[in-house]
Structure formats: C-alpha cells, structure tokens
C-alpha cells in the first residue's frame, strides 16, 4: 500500500512539495484553509474579483503565475482539499473542519507548510479600528482589491515594509508615511551579506527607489509610535532618533514587526522548539532535509524558518525529497543538490536580513502600564507587571493562569510573545527561561455543532 502523505498548506512550500510527491506517484493530500491555492503571498482573489497577475503581485507576478500553474498541472495526482481547517494533530491523524463538518485525516507522513504570521508589538492606539498588520493590509489588497484606507501609514521592522509600501503605491493608494523602526545603518552594514542572493538585493533596492520616486515620506530608526483617534484612526505620532515628535494625518495604519512561524500544528504534533536569539523568537528545531524532531513530521516554508517565498519553494521540495528518501523511494539527486546550494546562499541572505532589521526592543521598553497587551481578554501591560510582583510567576504559562493573557480567541498567537517580553523585563529572567505558551487544540476556534 502507498504511504499516506498529508501536506498542510498550499502556499509556495506546500505546492512545490506536492509537485515532488505527486511526481513520485504518491498522490499526497493537500489541506488548506483558503478557498484557492497560493498561500498568503500568492493569494488569489475570489471568483468575480479577478485581476491580472501584475496588478496583484507586481514584480513577483511571474512566480505567482508559475506556482498557480504548477499546482493546476498536478490535477488529480494530488488530493487537494481547500476550505479545510486543520485544528488538531494527534496519534498520526489530523482533525479537520470543512464546510462546518468535522473529519479526520490519518497520515503516515505529515508535511507542515503552514507559513508565517505578522509579529505584533502593541503601541498606544494599536487596537483602534483602522489599525492592521502589514500582512492584513496586503491581503486586503490581494484578495479584495481594496486599500485599508484612503491615506495609509505603514510601520514595520522587516522586508515586508517596503514591499507592502510599493504594492500600495502601485495600486494607487495615498501612502502617508513609511516608518521603519530599525536604523538605516543596519541595512548598510548588512548589504554585503544580502549580496549572497544578488537578485534579492536588486529587488530590495528597486523597492526603495520606488518609494523615493513616489516621494513618500520615509523614516528609519523610529523610536516610538502612537496612533491617535477616538473611534477610528485619525493620525499618527512618531518620534525620530533625535527625539523629535512628528505628526501625520491618516485614516489607516498597518504595522507589524517581522514574521513569526505558524507553528501551532507542529507544536501539537510534538515537534521540539528552541529559542532563536537572533530573531528573538521560538522556532521549530530543524534537522537535515527539513525533518522535525518527530520521525514522521517534516517542515517546510516559513513555518520551519522565516525565509520568504523563494526559499519556501525550495524547502518545500527539499522536505518532499526527505519524505521520499525516508520511504525508500529513489529519485534523481541532482535537483536536491542544487537546492541545497541555493539554500545555503539564502541562509546567508537571511542572516543579513535579520541583522538589517534587528528586533526593536526599544518599543517593548517603551510600553507603559496602561497599554493593552492582550486584546482578546483586555489585559494591560501594567496588570502583567503587577501580577509578577504579587505572584513571582516564573514562566509565561503561569502568568497566563493568573491574568488570562493569551486565553482568548487568538490563543496568544498575537500577544503570547509580548507577554513573555513583559515578564522577562519585569523579573529579569531570560526569554528562554520565561518560555512560551503551550499549544492546545483547536488551533483556531471550531463551532459546537451537531
């Protein structure tokens, strides 16, 4: 009997993995929450709202077309199940929800390609209507073809910032400001490393030139941000490196500070994790070929390590080859060799990018007691600090038990890492010691229906 292989995620990683496995005649199951393949980056608009690839994906239109076409070609050689939420993993089976119906998908091998999620750092006004993440702003543009506002300010600490800015400009939006909370000097210093992938460096440069061409006010080393407005965003205040405050009018803000892997499924599958000091976050422990610490579970794309879409295609293929190898199925090794070489260059690029966009700890240090940190449960920074003073909670799970932080709808996806930062700051313990919130199913809310 054929081994049953299940891929979760139909983004660039999942699609390329499916291609390799289908090519070996294995007919993998591909599960994805979205209605159409492509993942976040190559997300397709819903039927009736189609636009041409260049409008949607700009410089990445060719890649998007390739990915969509590659998946289309697979046809019946994959068992593709869109609109399917995977909400649990245990004993080599996944619990799924499809059109309101519960189901179980067993697997022999599981390839997780669930992508990444914006890293959120709260600042005054972050819960006001009109404030989005950069990823959210991008989805609005791609899926619905709408801008998040008439006059938009973009804030970030990663390569997504200039990308989203250029996409908004291309779409004809009025971009009020592009504020980078990391210093420009860091990028200059990282330039050499970025040349490991010259195409990437070129693309980055052209994005910056585009911002210049459109004359968008751009600032680096932004020290503090504050969104203003009573019921909705009406402006933004920010402080520059020299300590001067600036004020701009806008009706929407998109802000996020790098990406974090969507690792809840890997967590439930039992995959080990470690604290990565460079990016200041927990990542799944990766072994050779995209293998996780669990024998039947493989990781690819951004959920394994943030690398972007090009890397995702490569790690998707690589993980699929590892599956073939572990099943004792032969394949031509040349392509895999090429992949490893390219990935090595991308690893150098990623190091450079991490250095170009260092984690903005100053935004954490600046958090005042009155700031809401967990929006689902309405927990403030001050409540977390006070709870530590009273209880000496040594880790973030204990802090959660006392304060409800991370207990709401998002289950700490948004605020968990920030709660750890506050606890570490208050107690003097290290972030690895403070730990991370334990994963529990359901990964996303599921309805109680019969």
């Amino acid at each position, binding site marked *: 009997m054929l081994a049953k292989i299940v891929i979760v995620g139909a983004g660039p990683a999942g699609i390329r993995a499916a291609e390799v496995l289908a090519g070996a005649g294995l007919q993998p199951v591909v599960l994805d929450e979205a209605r159409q393949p492509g993942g976040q980056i190559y997300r397709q608009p819903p039927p009736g709202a189609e636009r041409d690839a260049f409008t949607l994906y700009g410089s990445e239109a060719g890649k998007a077309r390739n990915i969509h076409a590659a998946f289309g070609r697979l046809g019946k050689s994959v068992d593709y199940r869109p609109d399917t939420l995977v909400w*649990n993993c*245990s004993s080599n089976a996944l*619990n799924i929800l499809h059109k309101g119906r*519960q189901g179980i998908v067993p697997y022999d091998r599981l390839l997780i390609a669930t992508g990444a999620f914006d890293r959120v750092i709260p600042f005054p006004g972050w819960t006001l209507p009109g404030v989005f993440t950069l990823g959210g702003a991008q989805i609005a543009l791609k899926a619905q073809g709408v801008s998040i506002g008439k006059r938009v300010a973009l804030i970030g600490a990663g390569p997504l910032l200039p990308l989203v800015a250029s996409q908004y400009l291309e779409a004809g939006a009025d971009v009020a400001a592009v504020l980078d909370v990391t210093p420009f000097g860091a990028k200059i210093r990282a330039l050499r490393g970025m040349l490991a992938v010259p195409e990437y460096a070129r693309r980055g440069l052209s994005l910056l030139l585009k911002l210049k061409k459109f004359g968008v006010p751009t600032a680096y080393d932004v020290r503090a941000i504050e969104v203003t407005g009573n019921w909705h965003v009406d402006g933004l205040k920010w402080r520059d490196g020299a300590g001067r405050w600036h004020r701009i009018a806008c009706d929407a803000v998109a802000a996020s500070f790098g990406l974090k892997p969507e690792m809840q499924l890997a967590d439930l599958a039992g995959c080990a994790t470690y604290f990565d000091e460079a990016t200041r976050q927990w990542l799944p422990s990766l072994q050779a070929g995209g293998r996780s610490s669990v024998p039947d579970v493989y990781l690819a794309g951004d959920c394994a390590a943030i690398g972007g879409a090009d890397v995702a295609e490569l790690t998707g293929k690589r993980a699929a080859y590892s599956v073939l190898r572990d099943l004792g199925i032969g394949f031509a090794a040349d392509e895999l060799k090429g992949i490893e070489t390219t990935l090595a260059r991308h690893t150098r690029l990623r190091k450079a990018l991490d250095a170009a966009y260092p984690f903005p700890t100053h935004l954490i240090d600046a958090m005042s007691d009155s700031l809401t940190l967990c929006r689902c449960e309405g927990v403030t920074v001050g409540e977390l600090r006070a709870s530590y003073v009273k*209880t000496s909670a*040594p880790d973030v799970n*204990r802090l959660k*038990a*006392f304060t409800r932080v991370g*207990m*709401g*709808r998002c*289950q700490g996806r948004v605020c968990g890492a920030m709660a750890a930062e506050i606890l570490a700051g208050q107690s003097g313990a290290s972030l690895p010691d403070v730990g991370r919130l334990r994963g*529990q*199913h*359901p990964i996303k*809310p*599921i*309805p*109680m*229906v*019969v």
Partner: protein
Amino acid sequence: MERLSVDVAIIGGGIVGCAAALALRKAGLTVALLEKGLCGAQASGINAGGVRQQGRHVTELPMTRRAAKLWPRLHETLGEDVEFRQVGHLRLARSEQDVQMLEDYAVTAREHGLYLQLNSGTVTREMFPWVSGKIAGSSLAVEDGHANPRLVTPAYSRAARSHGVHVLEFTPVEHAQWTGSNFEIQAPRLVVKSRHLVNAAGAWAGKFLSFFGESAPLTLRTPNLFVTEPVSYFMTKSIAVCGGAVYFRQVERGNVVLGGGPGWGDLKSERSRNRADTTLGQFARAIELVPELSGLHIIRSWSGLEGDLPDKLPIIGASRTTPNLVHAFGLCGHGFQLGPAIGEILCELIRDGRSQTPIDAFCISRFDAVAHQKMAGAG
C-alpha cells in the same frame, strides 16, 4: 546540603497540601510544604472549578458539607478574591427514572443538611428558560457554585507562606523514610526532618506508598475539558445531568467551560491533553440540555492528571504501616470542592489524632479486603 526540621512535612502543593499547611500552621505547628513544581499547577490549578456538593457519594456528604461552609469565606481566609460564585448547581433529569433518582438522593442529602430543591420539568423551564424543553425535572443546590482554580491554590500557598509555612517550590521529594522517631525526607540539596508526614502528592502519591510498604489500586484519571469564546451571560447555574456524561458552567466573563469523558495524560512526562474525539462527542450531549450552546466556538481545551480509585472515593487517613504518616490523595476528579475541608481534617488528625468529620470510609485498608477477596476467589 540544606537541613530543615519541622513538626510536619507535606509532600505536594495542590489544594490538599496547601490547605493542610495553612491549617496546621494556624494550629501552631511548624510546617514545610514540598512541591516538585509550582503550587497549584497540577490538578488543583487546571480543574473545571466546580464547587459542588450535589451528586456526591453519601460517605462524602459530611466532608462536602464542611467544605461548603468554608468556601463562602475563603476570600477572607486567603486575603484575596478567588472568584468563588455561589450561583447554584442544577442537576437535570432526562427521564422519569432520573427524576426518581433525584428525589431519592434529595432525601439522603437532607439527612446531612444539604437541602436540594426539586423541580418538575415545567418549573425548571419556567425558572431557567434556556434549559431544553425535553428535561423531565431538576434538582437545584443553591449553595453550590464555582471558583477560579487557577487562583485558589496559589492563593492558599501565599497565605501559608505569610503565616510562616516553609513553602518549598521546585523541590521534588525523591525519598522519604521513618527512622523510628521521625521522618527523613530527601529532595535535591535538602533534607527535611519531621515528626509527621502528609502524603498529598495527588496522582503521584503511589510512589510514597511504596516507600512505606503500602499499596493502593491508584490509577490515573484525566478529565477532558474545553471552553468556548465569551458570549453574553445567560446560563445562571452550573449544569450537570443524571448519568453524569457532561457538565458545564458559564463564567461571568461569558466563556462556557465544559467537561466530561476521558482526556489523555502521562504521569512520567507530566503531560496531559484534551482528546478531540471526547470533545466532539460532548457537543451533542451538551446541546441536548441547553440548545443555545449550539454554534458557540470552542477556543481552548485541556486535561490534567488526577489520582483515581476503583470505588471513586479518596484515601484519607492514617497509614497502616507507619506511625505519624497520613495520606490524602486519589480524589477521583472531584477534590477541588473538598480541598478546604480536607486541609482542616488533616490538621485535626495530626494535632488531635482524630477528625471531627467521619472519614472511616476513606481508609486505605478498604482495598485490602478487595485484594483478599480476589485472592480467595482465585484460590
């Protein structure tokens, strides 16, 4: 190596160990509480928070009555709010047989001072319109309710500490022995010498039986819990049903906590997890009782590690092999409400040699008879 000498050493910082520590210290004894992790991080910290007398076995009624008198003033004892809400506990009957069962139980309960209000199906719906029309009757325990388990036991441990108990967290007891005149209890870098020892190690208590040449048929129980997103507060009573397949309650914040059936757990790795199949199976059972639950979203699930015994009653009382050793474990998934009373009972056992509340039914020797019967049967 640190050395500590006290009147009483307690193994386990769950609600049982912490409540005992506070009571003993208030009675003037010196106390060391040894907890391998954090106080109230195991069963006592993650349970369903049900503070319920109704439905308990008749032998537990005196103890549960005693506890019921302590809960309403627990915030005073502990010096902080633990979200105890005396909302009342409603037990539903789905058939005339079940109604009869409720009536019989109410008679027994009354003999112990627990007054249950019996309602017909019509009256139940009149009072609680959110209950399904198919309900045949109900029994309401007005003194019952719920509390926040994440707060109660840590609050106990803080109160114990401020009264002078040596609360030693991250202190796993590795060995314990009776020297003939006192106990010697070993943890990494620590030896505690004590005149008395309390085994309140919850699901792990079996280890401390074997040190003293005792045994009990203790197994692992992992109740399955899950919680919905917050919705406007409508379910003003904690709910259970005859047959006990499902139970649930709504907290003021709006979330509904549901339980019943087995989760998954492992004692060695100290891990536990909700079982998705159990959870999915509970949807229909809960919605059958309260139709408005239909469509609510589940946002989180969990389980925990608890000691279980064949007759679903705890072991509380003196060891049969070792003087000055007292056991209190195996609370079979319903020890949260009892905790405050067990603390006082343990204090009396140690201070006076006997408890004011009858606990004979919980003696460890009751299982010897079973073992003997089995052996006789086999022979």
